[in-house]
């Protein structure tokens, strides 16, 4: 255990001012999507209040990944054409980019790699939800995937100074990198991520995805399926080298996650084999 780092991290999580912020509109839209009383026009109005987000949202609505062919020129039009869940995902991409699209030193991720990793995991998670006939949760799988590693943005600095200790603990105790993060620094990137989402007032399901994406077997029952989907999508992207950093593949593939989703061996291999399509789809989000 590295006492100094642990104390510093305790300070950070207890003083949420030091955790990253997100434009208000993201939290509002997430709440409104779950509110049966919120109309399309109210949601569109809320988004339109943030000019910078609106510009990006419209651009994303017309990107090859989200577009339905017809040019979309207003947020209101987007909610009608794409549906509010899709628009919520798009707002999310626009609102989180500045937090995630940077160099992540301690994890050895060059600028853009963590962002592209999140997008690829999101595209793959959504795909898994669709092929497993769970389209009603595909949007949550997508949003949760975008931010599943957000904790790395805060932890990176400390991982950098404790890197040797973490690696030697992985080696001597044969535990995963993220378990070693927790043992050495008192927190792993999942727990820090959960604190960030708590600061943002995000719903429990998204907090669970962030908190348990490397240990889906420990997720509460009501979120186990979504956590498992993101876990598998994350694993496959890492195996494909997408967003793999200094923590490498020092993680587990959870058998319980495979069973929870009901993925057959062949389906799992196909997801990996189709990574070039996943990457193409992810790079069409811009």
């Amino acid at each position, binding site marked *: 255990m590295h006492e100094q780092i642990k104390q510093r991290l305790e300070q950070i999580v207890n003083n949420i001012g030091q955790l990253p912020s997100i434009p208000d509109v993201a939290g509002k839209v997430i709440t409104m999507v779950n509110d049966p009383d919120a109309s399309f026009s109210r949601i569109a109005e809320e988004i339109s209040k943030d000019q910078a987000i609106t510009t990006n949202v419209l651009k994303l609505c017309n990107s090859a990944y989200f577009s339905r062919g017809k040019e979309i020129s207003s947020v209101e039009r987007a909610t009608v054409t794409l549906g509010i869940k899709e628009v919520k995902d798009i707002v999310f991409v626009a609102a989180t980019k500045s937090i995630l699209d940077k160099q992540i030193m301690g994890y050895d991720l060059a600028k853009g790699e963590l962002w592209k990793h999140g997008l690829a995991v999101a595209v793959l998670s959504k795909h898994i939800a669709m092929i497993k006939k769970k389209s009603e949760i595909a949007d949550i799988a997508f949003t949760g995937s975008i931010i599943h590693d957000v904790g790395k943005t805060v932890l990176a600095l400390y991982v950098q100074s404790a890197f040797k200790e973490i690696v030697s603990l992985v080696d001597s105790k044969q535990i995963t990198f993220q378990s070693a993060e927790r043992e050495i620094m008192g927190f792993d990137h999942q727990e820090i991520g959960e604190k960030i989402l708590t600061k943002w007032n995000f719903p429990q399901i998204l907090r669970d995805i962030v908190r348990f994406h490397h240990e889906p077997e420990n997720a509460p029952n009501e979120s186990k399926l979504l956590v498992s989907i993101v876990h598998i999508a994350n694993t496959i992207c890492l195996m494909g080298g997408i967003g793999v950093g200094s923590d*490498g*593949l020092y993680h*587990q*593939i959870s*058998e319980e996650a495979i069973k929870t989703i009901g993925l057959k*061996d062949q389906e799992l291999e196909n997801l990996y*084999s189709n990574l*070039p399509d996943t*990457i193409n789809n992810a790079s069409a989000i811009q």
Partner: protein
Amino acid sequence: MQTLINVGVAQMQTAANPTVLRTILGSCIGICIYDRVKKTGGMAHILLPNGSGSEKPEKYADTAIPLLINNLIKAGCKKENLSAKISGGASMFKFNPNISLAQIGEKNIEMTIKLLEENHIPIMAADVGGNAGRVIDFYLEDGRLKVRAGGKEKMYYKI
């Protein structure tokens, strides 16, 4: 000036001195072949050991290797001057051995070595296996390969 070219998953690239070819690897293999006389080389980033034959040949070791050799010969390389370096093929740290996907890294390594041997391309360095992700840079000025993994760098010079 060295130009840097990123080689993506299931892609292949050939180029001449002074280009640097880079890729990032998990369970995939970066196959780097170099002509020491012509100072020209190529990199294939393969995802799987073998496919059905009808698909994208760059994706599989068994089809990508002959294609890469062919592309180099078309670019004026001589087969007898070619040598290879390979990297990648990592596996997840913990998994139940009955999950066949988890064996992909090992299978990729086996198939890559087998195909290079069958095509009589000597392997000068193999930085493969284990659980680390790798960023590799293949320098076409002299055929050296830099492998960055787990915060450390290694250089392989032999061509």
